[in-house]
């Protein structure tokens, strides 16, 4: 495990997480959340949890994002915060 | 002597399951009331059938379920319970007859409901009488509280609702707020709730705790209407008269004092009370109630309210008798349960009969009524005699014993209280009788059409009045029972 890479991705994860809840557009939130999940997936792959990473890649970054987008499609992109 | 195991006490309680046929036959009033009578008669017979065994000094026991460690759901028939059960079950018969007359006379609604809850209430009363421990007692006490609520609020109007609230506030508030914790505390102290002649509370408990406990019981059993928890009783007068009669003479208030008797004698025990001087304290609380209630009764104009305050006073006689902690006083208290029951129920029946016949409730409107309703008012007179304690009213006997008890206990002030209150009783009853019979026809405001109430109303009150008289001359069964009860209580102390 390369700790520099590890730390970099950890920071990215936190940034994506904060971004996902701060951005004032729900579609953006959904996409950032997908990015967050993908970073997380990388992190887990680094930690040797390949199965978990695989799952997160397909579920968190894939299907979850699609679910979010579908929801935003049927509701609204507008958000106050 | 060994207690007998018997199902009879259970049967006596369960006979009131007659409510089921009552409910089913709600469409045909005659059948319904036949069931009521049947159940009442059967209950009386069952109770009576246990009398010989009890008079022999035996106890009948019936254990139903072990609900808590050391506490069973158990029925037991002893002398004191027998005395009370006899009174209650015999009065149910007369009250049923009276109810039929009254309810039909006034064309009340919801008669089926009325008879059902009446039966339930009686069942609970007998249950209280035959309880073998504090838990069973509490169970039936609560059952009675809730069974009488629909009776008290029978009219279903705003006034009834208000009185119902007051009734619940005092009765249920007392039983849950005070009796329940007191009971748990008693269980915590002694590990049992079973009544015993010497009381089951350990003598080693801290006196303050025991004192608090006693007063929790005393005021928690609010049905006994000891001041200051008496206010529900006058309020509950909105109920139909047979219910008032039941409340005052037979079931509710008597259950209250009966519970207090049990607590004083078989939870605490006379020795413990004497050693802590708690008896005297209770006696003075009772004495205050006696005097205060009689004074308030003097100011009342509505007949039923007057009777209510009279009841409050009379109940405290019973408590007073027990609190004297002397054999004679105890006997007086116990007999007073019976004597007051027959006397007071007569008075209530009369009040009801007057209402059915004339629609009048207030004393001021009743001048000259004795000429229109001679039988009723004669019965009223007898009842009043009994309550005041003038021979040949049965009440004389109980007062006699109370006075003896007070002397025995060297409580001179209490003796004075008893005598003064008797005078006060006379002061509020006698003017009624006087005005009923001895005012000129010019002063009466009653219309000419007024005559006696229907036969179903009059017959019961005649019967109860006669019983009051008979009890003066032949009080033997009650005296024997009371004596037996006192013996079991005192006998243990070796006096």
């Amino acid at each position, binding site marked *: 495990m390369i700790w520099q890479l590890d730390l970099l991705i950890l920071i990215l994860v936190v940034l994506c997480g904060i971004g996902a809840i701060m951005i004032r557009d729900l579609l953006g939130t959904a996409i950032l959340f997908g990015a967050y999940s993908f970073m997380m997936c990388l992190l887990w792959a680094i930690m040797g949890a390949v199965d*978990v990473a695989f799952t997160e890649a397909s579920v968190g970054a894939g299907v979850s994002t699609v679910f979010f987008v579908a*929801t935003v499609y049927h509701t609204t992109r507008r958000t*106050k915060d | 002597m060994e207690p007998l195991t018997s199902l009879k006490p259970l049967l006596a309680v369960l006979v009131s399951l007659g409510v089921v046929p009552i409910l089913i036959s709600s469409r045909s009033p005659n059948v319904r009331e036949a069931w009521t009578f049947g159940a009442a008669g059967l209950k009386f017979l069952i109770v009576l059938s246990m009398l010989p065994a009890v008079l022999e000094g035996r106890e009948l026991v019936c254990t139903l379920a072990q609900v808590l460690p050391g506490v069973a759901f158990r029925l037991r028939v002893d002398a004191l319970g027998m005395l009370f059960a006899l009174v209650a079950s015999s009065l149910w018969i007369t009250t049923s007859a009276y109810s039929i007359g009254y309810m039909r006379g006034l064309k009340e609604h919801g008669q089926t409901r009325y008879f059902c809850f009446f039966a339930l209430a009686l069942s609970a009363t007998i249950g209280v009488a035959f309880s073998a421990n504090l838990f069973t007692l509490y169970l039936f006490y609560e059952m009675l509280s809730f069974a009488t609520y629909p009776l008290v609020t029978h009219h279903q109007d705003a006034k009834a609702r208000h009185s119902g609230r007051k009734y619940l506030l005092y009765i249920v508030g007392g039983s849950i707020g005070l009796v329940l914790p007191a009971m748990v505390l008693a269980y915590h102290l002694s590990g049992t709730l079973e009544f015993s002649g010497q009381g089951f509370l350990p003598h080693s408990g801290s006196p303050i705790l025991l004192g608090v406990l006693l007063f929790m019981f005393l005021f928690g059993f609010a049905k006994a209407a000891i001041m200051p928890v008496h206010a529900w009783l006058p309020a509950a007068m909105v109920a139909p008269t047979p219910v008032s009669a039941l409340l005052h003479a037979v079931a509710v208030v008597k259950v209250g004092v009966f519970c207090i008797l049990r607590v004083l004698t078989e939870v605490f025990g006379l020795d413990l009370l004497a050693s802590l001087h708690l008896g005297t304290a209770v006696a003075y609380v009772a004495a205050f109630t006696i005097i205060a209630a009689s004074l308030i009764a003097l100011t009342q104009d509505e007949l039923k309210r007057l009777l209510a305050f009279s009841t409050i006073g009379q109940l405290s006689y019973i408590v007073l008798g027990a609190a004297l902690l002397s054999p004679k006083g105890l006997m007086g208290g116990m007999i007073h349960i019976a004597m007051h029951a027959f006397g007071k129920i007569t008075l209530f029946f009369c009040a009801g009969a007057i209402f059915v016949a004339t629609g009048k409730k207030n004393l001021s409107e009743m001048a000259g009524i004795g000429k229109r309703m001679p039988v009723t008012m004669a019965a009223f007179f007898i009842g009043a005699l009994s309550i005041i304690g003038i021979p040949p009213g049965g009440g004389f006997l109980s007062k006699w014993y109370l006075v003896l008890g007070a002397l025995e206990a060297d409580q001179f002030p209490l003796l004075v209280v008893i005598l003064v209150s008797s005078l006060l009783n006379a002061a509020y009853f006698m003017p009624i009788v006087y005005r009923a019979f001895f005012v000129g026809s010019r002063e009466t405001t009653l219309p000419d059409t007024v005559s006696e109430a229907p036969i179903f109303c009059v017959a019961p009150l005649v019967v109860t009045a006669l019983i009051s008289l008979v009890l003066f001359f032949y009080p033997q069964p009650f005296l024997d029972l009371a004596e037996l009860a006192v013996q079991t209580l005192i006998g243990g102390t070796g006096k």
Partner: protein
Amino acid sequence: MEEVLRLVVERYNYWIYITLMMIGLYALIAKNNLVKKIVGMNIFQTAVILFYVSIGVKKGATIPIIEHNYDMAHQAIRAADYVNPLPHVLMLTAIVVSVATLGVALAITIMVYHRYLTLEEDEILKQIRES
């Protein structure tokens, strides 16, 4: 100082997970928008998963798949050579649970939106109070 540094370096992973978790929790509690809340909920869940996966890490170990053609007759498998697989198993389950929760939550969000035509919680509550 060195002590503190060691504490930080040895456990920074755990701290990051706590940070993420707090981000999620904050979004769940303080955000006004329902979808944002759901995102927060998911971040919260993934943070817990990160924590579990961190438990499983062993220095100098490889992924928990035994090499092919492993010669069992000659040498026993050394557990220290492989990452702890148990947390991974648990977290597979947890991920699935989180996506299931997400599906239900989003379905309900759509229902809420079509009843109140907004996703802002304060506006919804205002509508409820006014009706």
